[in-house]
């Protein structure tokens, strides 16, 4: 059997394929000491309200601050801007924006809608908020067909340049849309992205970070979930020097249903960090989190590093909550490090269910042996296993052309190390 290779935080760590742990060593009940970060959680639109992080803070302890190009300490200046385009369709099939109820506006800082999604909770997000000059607002006020996904492309400011970005995606009452939010290009970006999903609306969004090798992107995602609203958010991180994403789920009324999926693939030297907060503050909401990552370092180089923090808070008022979160990491080579810290804090016992699991392991030699014992060559067997590992996440992506692109991207990653 494969050996556990790491153990982190409240989660347990076992080999992939091992039974998912269903007990919750990390659960903190009302009676246990309160150490969770949200007890100290502070939010503000004003960058000066936050201390400059030094690296020891819980929020920043995993992030290599030196690689942030001054986003965190006020020394970065906005000398570039992001390019945003909104189209109908995805990939080669994308065309001009269609749909009478869908529009894209560029607005100023004073637009009253900005901030509906949530408030920055760290200094870089507040810096982005304090510094942006124009915001993009994409509003959907219709039930769009699944066959007409929206593609919002965000292009970086270019190598050596820095941009502060603000983007809001709004789904009005009972609207529906499938959206691909595609990030590409070079440069340094700090951003707030708001997903404001009104009562009864349904958003399926795939947020892709496929940046160039030099790029640094630090983004806060504010997801606001209306009454009986549904959000399927899939986060895909494939490229960039450093990508740090902090999605926060704010349930505004009962009946919200959120699934957060994630897929990340870090090569040598890359730092991909995901910090999730699912804040169950109202009754009868559901959340499911499933993030999967693969890592492959290069011998002698800087390690591939991924960080996954999954904070789930069930507040006293949130009776009837149903939540489960899972993070799995697959270490394909040496010189790779995956930190995985699930936290679950429960302030009421009147819930449907709550659980979490975390597993980080090396390639499962037993799976490899089994496939090879049927004649399948080693390289192909490894690919089958990695594809299978990510399959659960990719299968849920509703845009076929995007599924193809993600599968091709994973194949290309595997080619790099000759797996």
């Amino acid at each position: 059997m494969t050996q556990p290779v790491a153990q982190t935080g409240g989660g347990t760590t076992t080999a992939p394929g091992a039974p998912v742990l269903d007990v919750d060593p990390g659960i903190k009940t009302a009676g246990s000491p309160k150490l969770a970060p949200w007890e100290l959680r502070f939010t503000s639109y004003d960058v000066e309200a936050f201390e400059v992080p030094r690296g020891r803070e819980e929020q920043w302890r995993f992030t290599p601050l030196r690689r942030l190009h001054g986003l965190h300490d006020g020394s970065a200046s906005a000398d570039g801007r992001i390019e945003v385009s909104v189209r109908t369709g995805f990939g080669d099939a994308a065309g001009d924006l269609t749909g009478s109820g869908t529009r894209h506006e560029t607005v100023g800082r004073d637009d009253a809608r900005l901030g509906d999604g949530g408030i920055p909770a760290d200094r870089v997000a507040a810096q982005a908020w304090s510094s942006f000059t124009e915001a993009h607002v994409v509003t959907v006020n219709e039930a769009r067909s699944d066959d007409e996904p929206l593609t919002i492309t965000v292009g970086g400011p270019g190598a050596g340049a820095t941009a502060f970005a603000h983007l809001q995606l709004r789904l009005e009452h009972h609207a529906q849309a499938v959206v691909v939010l595609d990030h590409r290009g070079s440069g340094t970006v700090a951003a707030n992205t708001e997903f404001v999903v009104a009562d009864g609306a349904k958003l399926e969004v795939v947020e892709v970070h496929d940046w160039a090798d030099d790029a640094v992107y630090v983004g806060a995602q504010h997801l606001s979930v209306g009454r009986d609203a549904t959000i399927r958010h899939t986060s895909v991180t494939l490229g960039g020097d450093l990508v740090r994403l902090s999605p926060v789920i704010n349930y505004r009324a009962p009946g919200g249903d959120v699934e957060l999926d994630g897929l990340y693939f870090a090569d040598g030297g890359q730092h991909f960090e995901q910090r999730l907060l699912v804040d169950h503050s109202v009754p009868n909401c559901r959340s499911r989190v499933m993030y999967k990552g693969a890592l492959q370092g290069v011998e002698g180089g800087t390690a591939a590093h991924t960080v996954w923090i999954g904070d789930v808070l069930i507040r006293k008022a949130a009776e009837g909550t149903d939540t489960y979160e899972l993070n799995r990491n697959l270490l394909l080579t040496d010189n790779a490090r995956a930190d995985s810290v699930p936290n679950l804090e429960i302030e009421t016992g009147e819930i449907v269910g709550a659980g979490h699991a975390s597993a980080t392991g090396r390639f499962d030699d037993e799976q490899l042996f089994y496939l090879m014992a049927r004649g399948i060559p080693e390289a192909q067997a490894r690919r089958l296993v990695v594809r299978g590992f990510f399959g659960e996440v990719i299968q849920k992506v509703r845009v076929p052309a995007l599924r193809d692109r993600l599968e091709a991207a994973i194949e290309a990653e595997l080619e790099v190390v000759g797996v």
Partner: protein
Amino acid sequence: MSTLEIRDLHVEVETESGPKEILRGVDLTVNSNETHAIMGPNGSGKSTLAYSIAGHPKYTVTKGQVLLDGEDVLEMAVDERARAGLFLAMQYPVEVPGVSMSNFLRSAATATRGEAPKVRHWVKEVKGAMSDLEIDPAFAERSVNEGFSGGEKKRHEVLQMSLLKPKIAVLDETDSGLDVDALRVVSKGVNEYKSQSDVGILLITHYTRILRYIAPDRVHVFVNGRVAASGGPELADELEENGYERFVGAFGADKEEQPA
């Protein structure tokens, strides 16, 4: 006509207290159209023999030979052994999440046959083989072995054998954990493949029960890492009657870790 020859095979496994010898000089020859039963108490090294033939990395061969039609099997990688015509039906088939049974079977058939089977013919072939083993067609779209019951896993092992068409098949405790109905279905599948091919079978088992369904030509008693006695089918009857006592007493046996 194929022959698997095992000559003076010594195998050891790494333990916390250093390497430990499990196989201590196994000699055995299996020809096409022959079924050999290997019977022995728990811990005698039966499974180690099976996994060593297949090339599991946990086991180190320290001495001896395994030859398939004169070719040195021990020099081959795991996948090469399978492509050369060896098959191991495992006692504990491994779950591979996210890889569908149909994708897996097709990949394996493509590898062992040297070319991708024609789609129309292949679909029919798989359906027929599944139906013979009373496997619900829905299993084709499930992940390999994931959430399968013990019996379902064993049926799928036999399914793979019948599709990959090995020259020599090692069945490692294929009967363990099966109820009578499942045992009947699995045995029928093995007999079916025997009748359609020239396969030579090495049937490893702890109990004589399966031998009522799959008739052995030769029976070997395996104790303490080697073959302690060989004979015809009547030897199985004697074991049924008297157990392993006589052989264990003579050779002594100690516990062996089963590979998981």
